[in-house]
């Protein structure tokens, strides 16, 4: 068996475009998913029973089903129910945002809970308004505490995003698969694709450790 990695070089432009799609999709879904996750975390700790119930159902459902099934459902079923055409980019964004929202809401919930009663007492004693308390004390502490787990969530999302190739989105995985089919060189092409994912994900997982060691230790959070 002989390997010919030069084959991959011929398609580097296509792979770059695929990678760009993967990164774009991941970044959009990180931003939207974190915002959603934070709101859901607030809803899950809300005094309103309906908000609490609805948010719990959402989180448990999305944590308890495969992302691939969620993606297929949004891609094939949602357009039928809504009676609108959804581009595969749109359904990809919806599906991964909902996935990211569900896992990051749990992260935010835990970190919000970790801001102790005593911190709130101190805020009241200093006369801080509810708003000032939330934005200047609770939120920064919650976000800092959530940072390592949140970054892990982002790495998961980046990797899970390969699933959108199954609905025909031209991401890195999709492009790789096509090249591998056309060239009959699956080992070379898919190995390179895996390495590209790894080269991006690995520094991020290392960053998680650095954040935990340096920042959180310095602040004793």
């Amino acid at each position, binding site marked *: 068996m002989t390997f010919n990695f030069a084959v991959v070089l011929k398609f580097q432009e296509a792979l770059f475009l695929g990678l760009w799609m993967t990164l774009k999709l991941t970044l959009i879904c990180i931003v939207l998913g974190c915002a959603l996750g934070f709101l859901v975390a607030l809803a899950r700790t809300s005094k309103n029973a309906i908000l609490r119930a609805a948010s719990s159902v959402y989180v448990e459902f999305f944590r308890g089903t495969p992302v691939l099934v969620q993606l297929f459902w949004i891609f094939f079923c949602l357009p039928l129910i809504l009676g609108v055409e959804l581009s595969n980019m749109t359904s990809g964004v919806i599906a991964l945002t909902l996935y990211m929202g569900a896992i990051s809401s749990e992260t935010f919930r835990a970190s919000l809970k970790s801001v102790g009663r005593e911190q709130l*007492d101190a805020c*009241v*004693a200093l*006369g801080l*308004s509810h708003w000032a308390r939330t934005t*200047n004390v609770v939120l920064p*502490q919650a976000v800092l505490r959530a940072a390592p787990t949140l970054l892990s969530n982002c790495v998961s999302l980046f990797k899970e995003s390969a699933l959108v190739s199954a609905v025909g989105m031209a991401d890195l995985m999709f492009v790789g698969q096509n090249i591998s089919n056309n060239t009959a060189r699956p080992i070379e092409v898919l190995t390179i694709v895996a390495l590209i994912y790894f080269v991006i994900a690995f520094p991020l997982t290392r960053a998680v450790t650095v954040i935990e060691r340096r920042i959180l230790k310095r602040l*004793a959070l």
Partner: protein
Amino acid sequence: MSDTAPLVKIEGLHKSYGGVVKVLQGLDIEMKAGDRVVVIGPSGGGKSTLLRVLMGLEQIDGGSIVFGGKPYISANGNGKTAIDAKVRRSIGMVFQHYTLFPHLDVIGNLILAPMKVRGEKKAEAEARAMALLTRFGLAQKAKSYPAQLSGGQKQRVAIARALMLDPKLMLFDEVTSALDPELVAEVEQVILQLAKQQMPMVIVTHDMWFAKNIASRVIFCAGGVVVEDGPPEQVLGSPREERTREFIERVFHIKH
């Protein structure tokens, strides 16, 4: 406010947890502007709860508090507690466990409330903060984070943070109880310094030496009521009430 009007007037204060555990059972205290009150008594006797109520951190079941002649806290009958947030701002509190904001450095801890509550400019608040830190021997710690400080330093920062709002009354809730013995003095020195400047204060402490040195008045609180109230020499030295005497003997017995 005339000189004779009380700074704080607590009347018939009742407080229970869940209606079952009765912590305060009709507490009356009148405090003048020059008073430095030390509250002593057995645990569960209501000392810390009294401070927390005074700070507006707790709901009450009955009674009222007037501060500087203005209605401050009252139980309005239907289980709700009315707290005047404006009046509350003239009271500062320091807690047993420091409660500094861990994500802000020392100066950040000091200037947050002045900027957010009083709308003070950052530069102005920082200048005042530095002056206070210098006075407390903490100037070189301005850029440190709470986790990098010793317990005694943290507690002095907490005191400085409360002073940034120019309180008319300071509450100290067992502020040296969490400290290693060798760090107690530096915190007590700061409070004694404030006492010299005639800052009215209510202190809950188990440290009888400190109580004797700082108090203009000692209140012995047990079972949710004031059992004895008088000058430190009398309450600590020759208490009138049997329960006070028992408590003081026990505490000093353990201490020596």
